[in-house]
């Protein structure tokens, strides 16, 4: 297969890096591909880690992005359990910890993001967990027994999904959130209220507007989370889910522009024409919104993997996609299309109390910027199309369920 003497090095073997390697072959790249990953296992899907994997409904095989034979069949060289320590741009090579230099014609940085850590007393106690990798997930799974007490610090998606899985396994859960509502950074107050109430009905205790003062322990193991008001939430383990930080240091040290992520264009190219960056580690244009942003999602990783592969292979740039996200908790499926920039009004389609509804976020001129849909696939899919087309609607139109989504999206 390898007839081209050029070599692409992909630094990072997560969802973005693994997918980029596959797409390069789909688009006909004939040169060598070397995929360098820090974890000792083949690229895998992270979304199930907080859900099916925790609940024991997924296997290592079902988690894998592609089976082992794929990499040999597609002549993708795997360098796992190692990492890039330095990019030598003049020499067009990356260095590994053992001093080895791997040369590249193109370099794709798919470095991901890492869990933000708390700088608090007790943060290094045993049983203080995070959830980014399969190893993290296994540590969490090991403590989630019936009756076990899990404290979740941070009411974001990771925290809420883990809480739902923990409840399914019979564990007791307390969520501790600094803001006045869960999902404060990523969803609107209506959605926060809905999820908060739903989790409470499932037996989760939620403390909002709660500061964490310290993690308390005995013999090196966590025993509780001390709050700012002095109360202690006793626990057997604490999951810290307070956001993620882009792994941009390698790029910054190499002189590439970074600002909350490695700066890239719509081809996923950095300011070095031989270096691309994709996935959670990038700060990227959001053409639909005329802005720059960093997205942490699988669809974003795949879109940028496609952009980079198309650019390297000389193919037409793929059409920009509407950013989207999903989260499964209990029997709720949340799907979000778009991002609610500059919105002034929320239209509620459906009855929130039934658990099947969608929130449409409108600008002052009625442009639909984002749709948050709960157990409402037609609203999500139709909404994605509406957002893509920059369609303007009124709140009255959206809330009138006698008008079908097909009509609204037409």
């Amino acid at each position, binding site marked *: 297969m390898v007839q081209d003497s050029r070599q692409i090095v992909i630094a990072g073997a997560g969802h973005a890096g693994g997918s980029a390697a*596959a797409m390069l072959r*789909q688009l006909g790249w004939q040169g060598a591909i070397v995929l360098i990953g820090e974890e000792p296992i083949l690229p895998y899907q992270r979304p199930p880690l907080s859900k099916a994997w925790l609940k024991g409904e997924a296997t290592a095989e079902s988690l894998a992005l592609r*089976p082992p034979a794929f990499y040999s069949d597609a002549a993708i060289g795997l360098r796992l359990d190692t990492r890039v320590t330095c990019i030598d741009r003049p020499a067009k090579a990356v260095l590994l910890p053992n001093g080895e230099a791997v040369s590249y014609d193109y370099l794709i940085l798919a470095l991901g993001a890492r869990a933000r850590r708390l700088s608090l007393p007790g943060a290094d106690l045993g049983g203080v967990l995070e959830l980014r990798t399969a190893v993290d997930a296994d540590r969490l799974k090991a403590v989630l027994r019936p009756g076990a007490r899990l404290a979740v610090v941070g009411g974001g998606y990771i925290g809420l999904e883990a809480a739902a899985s923990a409840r399914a396994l019979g564990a007791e859960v307390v969520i501790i959130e600094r803001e006045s509502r869960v999902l404060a950074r990523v969803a609107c107050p209506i959605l926060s209220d809905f999820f908060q109430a739903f989790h409470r009905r499932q037996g989760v205790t939620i403390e909002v507007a709660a500061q964490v003062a310290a993690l308390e322990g005995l013999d090196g193991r966590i025993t509780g989370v001390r709050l700012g008001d002095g109360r202690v939430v006793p626990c057997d383990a604490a999951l810290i889910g307070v956001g993620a930080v882009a792994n941009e240091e390698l790029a910054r040290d190499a002189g590439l522009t970074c600002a909350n992520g490695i700066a890239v264009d719509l081809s996923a190219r950095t300011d070095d024409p031989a270096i691309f960056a994709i996935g959670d580690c990038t700060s990227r244009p959001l053409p639909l919104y005329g802005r720059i942003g960093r997205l942490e999602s699988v669809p974003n990783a*795949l879109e940028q993997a496609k952009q980079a592969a198309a650019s390297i292979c000389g193919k037409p740039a793929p059409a920009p996609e509407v950013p989207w996200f999903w989260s*499964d908790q209990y029997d709720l499926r949340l799907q979000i299309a778009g991002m609610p920039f500059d919105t002034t009004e929320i239209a509620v389609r459906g009855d929130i109390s039934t658990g099947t509804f969608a929130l449409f976020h409108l600008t002052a001129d009625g442009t639909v910027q984002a749709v948050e849909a709960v157990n409402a696939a037609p609203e999500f899919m139709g909404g*994605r199309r509406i957002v893509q087309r920059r369609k303007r609607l009124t709140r009255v139109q959206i809330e009138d369920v006698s008008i079908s989504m097909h009509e609204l999206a037409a």
Partner: protein
Amino acid sequence: MPKITYIEHNGSAHAIEVPIGKSVMQGAVDNNVPGIDADCGGECACATCHVYIDAAWLDRIGLPVPGSQEASMLSFAAVTQPDSRLSCQIHVTDAHDGLIVRMPEGQH
């Protein structure tokens, strides 16, 4: 193993042996068949594994259950036809040996 033929929009055909129990989507992804994106990994959340079922197979494969997540997702997918399915929702059995599916022009 049942053999499934995936035909890209440009006509390129890929005959793939897919293990029983895997989805038609997974068979394509495992073998890097272009044209099936499968963004969500088989959760029926994205409608980017859309295929058209060959006419000779439509009776046996069937259409999505009306009102199901798949039916809802599909009715808004790009370039839907009466023979559209989401390939993550078709699980391969012995009876699928010889199945032919075609890919739409795009998944987004």
